[in-house]
């Protein structure tokens, strides 16, 4: 049986800098998988390769056995791998509902001729239903008519997830979803991710803060200086000598 999502010898070089060096790991279907490491470990670069933002210098990203490395971002998305963004990247000028409607672009592909003649009523209704469903999932139903840019920080994060969720993804790639959140917001966000998992969605999240994802992930991959360092369950990683060493060493460098 082929693996669901597998990185095989992923390498990214910027000029002389080796950002990611021969990274290999597997993500099991239906799991929450964390990718951690100290600053500059190459997490974000890996994330960007997986989402199609960068083309790897070498190596493969296999989704159900198909190599998706080097595909454009929208092509990766169309294969069911949808990313979110750090900060609050949203369509600030559009309403909450319209944001979610953009998220339904893939399941309800717009057709310009049908739109002009008015033969796309079914699709528009379906898209709106899906968008409202996604908003409800993330507790945003009361805010559908608000302008996205006016939302609170926490709601903007939730909307970012709702836009991704609206597209019926198989895999959601989350880029540092806990950054800048207080403990209460973090708790709520973790709850949302558990519900996504219950919905059958595989989640890969990149996090700098090791503690935040210990209670959430099934499996954690730790990298350091662009290389694979360790992998295992939260308990295993928490006590892994190499991981502790990397974080302490990293901390010393940062300070």
């Amino acid at each position: 049986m082929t693996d669901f999502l597998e990185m095989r010898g992923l390498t990214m070089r910027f000029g002389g800098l080796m950002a990611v060096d021969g990274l290999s790991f597997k993500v099991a279907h239906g799991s929450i998988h964390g990718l951690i490491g100290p600053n500059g470990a190459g997490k974000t670069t890996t994330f960007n390769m997986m989402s199609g933002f960068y083309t790897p210098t070498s190596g493969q990203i296999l989704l159900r056995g198909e190599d998706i490395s080097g595909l454009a971002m929208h092509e990766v998305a169309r294969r069911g791998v949808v990313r979110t963004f750090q900060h609050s990247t949203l369509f600030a000028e559009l309403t909450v509902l319209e944001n979610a409607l953009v998220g339904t672009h893939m399941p309800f592909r717009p057709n310009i001729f049908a739109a002009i003649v008015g033969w796309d009523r079914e699709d528009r209704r379906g898209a709106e239903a899906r968008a409202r469903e996604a908003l409800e999932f993330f507790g945003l139903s009361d805010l559908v008519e608000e302008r996205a840019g006016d939302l609170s920080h926490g709601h903007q994060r939730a909307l970012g997830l709702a836009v991704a969720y609206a597209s019926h993804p198989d895999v959601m790639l989350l880029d540092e979803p806990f950054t800048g959140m207080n403990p209460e917001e973090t708790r709520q966000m973790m709850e949302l991710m558990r519900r996504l998992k219950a919905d059958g969605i595989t989640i890969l999240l990149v996090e700098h803060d090791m503690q935040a994802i210990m209670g959430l992930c099934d499996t954690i991959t730790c990298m350091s200086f662009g290389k694979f360092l360790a992998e295992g369950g939260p308990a295993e990683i928490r006590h892994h000598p190499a991981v502790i060493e990397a974080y302490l060493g990293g901390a010393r460098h940062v300070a």
Partner: protein
Amino acid sequence: MLKPLMFLFGAVALIALPHGLSFSQQEILVFLVINILLVTSYRLLTLTGEWSLGHVVIMGVGAYASALLTKELGVAVPVAMFLGGITSALLAVLLSFPLFRMKGFYFLIGSFAAGEIIRLIWKRFREPFGGVRGISGIDPMPDFSLGFYSFDFFEPVSYYYFAGVIVLACLWVLWRIEKSPVGLTFHAVHWQDKLAQASGVNLRAYRTLAFAIASGFAGIAGALQAHYVGTVNPNSFDIEVMVFVLTWAIVGGTTTFYGPILGCVLLTVINEIVLRGMGFEQARPLIYGAIMILSILFLPNGLESIVQKFLPRRSTAKSDRKAEA
């Protein structure tokens, strides 16, 4: 109940409008109608966030194509007009390959260069484009009768009705596109192209689509103009005309559908009727330039921002808020 009445009233006003005007004002009215289509099509392109300086040349492509099709191949005028639009749209698809490698300022300059090259090609090649003097003696729209009204295309009023119907149909299509999921995707591409892409939107395809549609309707506007005036030449599509289009769009504002139309109508009225009527013939570009500067300085969101203050706020209209921000 109110809506059909408003439409009826609007239709009557549009039909009655030319009868209160002088002959030369009627001619201006025809150009105004054509220019409304031009500037509205331009706005569709700006929806995706790109500002082109080649739009008027693309309009000229439609004009040349339609003129040549009737003259050289004997195609019927209405068919040629439609094909003129198609030619412009196809050329836009072709131009999108080099131009959409650029964004923002580079796209602006690139579109300008592409437009100038097309104009120079018209100038350089006497066959079939007629060189600097262009093409003259273009077939007019043949007269026809609808029973209750006979179109005599030597009369500007007739051409006003004819062009008016075509332009209204085109505006309707443009309006439908904007209010559709396709239009929403154009907005998405403009505001956050990366997020749109992450949602599965093919950026290149959508930018090209907007460019092709905008160009196609500009081409139809060009064809309407060519068969009314009877001549086309490279200078009738130069950067100065582009400046007018840009001014209409900016003075009117581009966040709403009606903004550019408002700018076009108001500036045309000021320009042609007030200034010309008052004898400021030579100072017209000066006053135009001053209006442009003043409006960008003191009314950066365009005339539409004034209108929006008086309109009840609709919760679904995305664009209303920019003015308040």
